[in-house]
């Protein structure tokens, strides 16, 4: 990549000091499907809309929430293919960390490395920034944690956050509903209610996805029937 005639960065400063490409990337995220995450006292929940482009798409083949390690999961808002590339790189980095230190990678380390990759693509030659924001959720020796990583490569730890289309309403809703001593089960209900707020159409286990991790430190994606059970509880 360094040798080619096109090895200059496509992301350059505007006179006002902004990186316009990153602003545009955030736009791409902002028009993506809503996703959110909530950190409870004993776990983390992440959730996202799963609106498929047509009823003909086989929804069982689509999974937006992915595992990076047995105890760290990730959800995105924005361009699906970009998130796949990041997840793939992060998985590899987690394995390399384990090979070197014989310790499962701490969440902060994995977030840092993922963010570093995203930043690289805002400065390297011939590439564009990633059109996704990620919510990374996990449970390690420092307890339950939730991080958001943006296309610029900046990351923040959140108690609860939302991204995508309905972000402002969702965040307002979360601000009202969030409590420090929330249990994981309450957090799941709150996540569903938050998604329901801006949802167009009938919400069901087939058009949303939920991932949870508790004190057992095993991240898992709920099945659509489990989601339907939670939806029934919430009604």
């Amino acid at each position, binding site marked *: 990549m360094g040798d080619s005639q096109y090895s200059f960065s496509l992301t350059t400063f505007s006179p006002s000091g902004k990186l316009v490409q990153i602003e545009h990337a955030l736009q791409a995220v902002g028009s993506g499907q809503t996703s959110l995450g909530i950190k409870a006292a004993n776990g983390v929940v992440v959730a996202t809309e799963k609106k498929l482009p047509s009823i003909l798409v086989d929804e069982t083949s689509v999974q937006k929430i992915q595992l990076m390690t047995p105890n760290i999961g990730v959800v995105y808002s924005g361009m699906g293919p970009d998130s796949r590339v990041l997840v793939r790189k992060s998985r590899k980095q987690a*394995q390399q960390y384990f*090979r070197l230190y014989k310790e499962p990678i701490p969440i902060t380390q994995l977030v840092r490395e993922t963010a570093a990759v995203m930043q690289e693509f805002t400065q390297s030659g011939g590439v564009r920034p990633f059109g996704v924001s990620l919510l990374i959720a996990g449970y390690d020796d420092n307890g339950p944690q939730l991080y958001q990583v943006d296309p610029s490569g900046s990351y923040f730890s959140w108690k609860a956050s939302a991204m995508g289309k309905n972000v402002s309403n969702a965040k307002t809703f979360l601000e009202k509903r969030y409590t420090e001593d929330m249990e994981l089960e309450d957090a799941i209900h709150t996540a569903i209610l938050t998604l329901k707020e801006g949802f167009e159409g009938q919400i069901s286990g087939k058009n949303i996805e939920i991932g949870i991790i508790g004190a057992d430190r095993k991240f898992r994606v709920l099945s659509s029937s489990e989601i339907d059970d939670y939806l029934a509880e919430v009604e």
Partner: protein
Amino acid sequence: MGRMTELPTKGGFSFDLCTRNDMLLKNGLQMPPFRKTGTTIVGLVFQDGVVLGADTRATEGPIVADKNCEKIHFMAPNIYCCGAGTAADTEAVTDMVSSQLQLHRYATGRESRVVTALTLLKSHLFSYQGHVSAALVLGGFDVTGPHLHTVYPHGSTDTLPFATMGSGSLAAMSVFESKYREGLTREEGIELVAEAICAGIFNDLGSGSNVDVCVITEGKTEYLRNYQLPNPRTYISSKGYTFVKGQTEVLSTKITSIQPKVEAVEGGDAMEE
């Protein structure tokens, strides 16, 4: 626009140092002894899955380096691998393939298959042309059933109902050849594996100490570390030892006093800041 950086190095193993090592050996250099696992490792297929077994002695030439090392390595929740040969090589290669299998599991969303581990191992070992001294017994249970393979340092593999590797392989194989039959039960399988490993422990100098067993069946793996301990320490005196002064013969005495080299002087000028 000229080249800003040099070309990236081409991949592949560089054999330069191997030719240098051969030259040094010819000129009379004594190679330092590798820590080898000596070893008796075995595996067999029984009616519900596979049983793997290994001894626990690691040797460095004529010295026992580790009396209770672990030779049955984790590859995947449903696949384990026994390793004989150079300890560092078996550790490194099994760790590496285990890592690759985990990435593959995330990418495919499926349980790992034994043939996948087998192919990853043999391609790696072949590319190093036998210089990675790892002889392995790979066993596991996947969607296609129970599997048992042996992998040799040069990269060849066999698929077998029962297998032994390592310096104690002949002792262990004699047990298998006389007592193995198809359709063994779990208890019979474990007993036979333990017997074969004991044959290696007692008849081969490179193998010793304890018996490790690993049973892999559909959906369940049991790692029985130190399943048998046929070589317990029996000579520690519980009372301890007392040594009376004068018991050790003094051959000569030399006393050297340490003279002070630096003298502290009181007063003097204060240091300039």
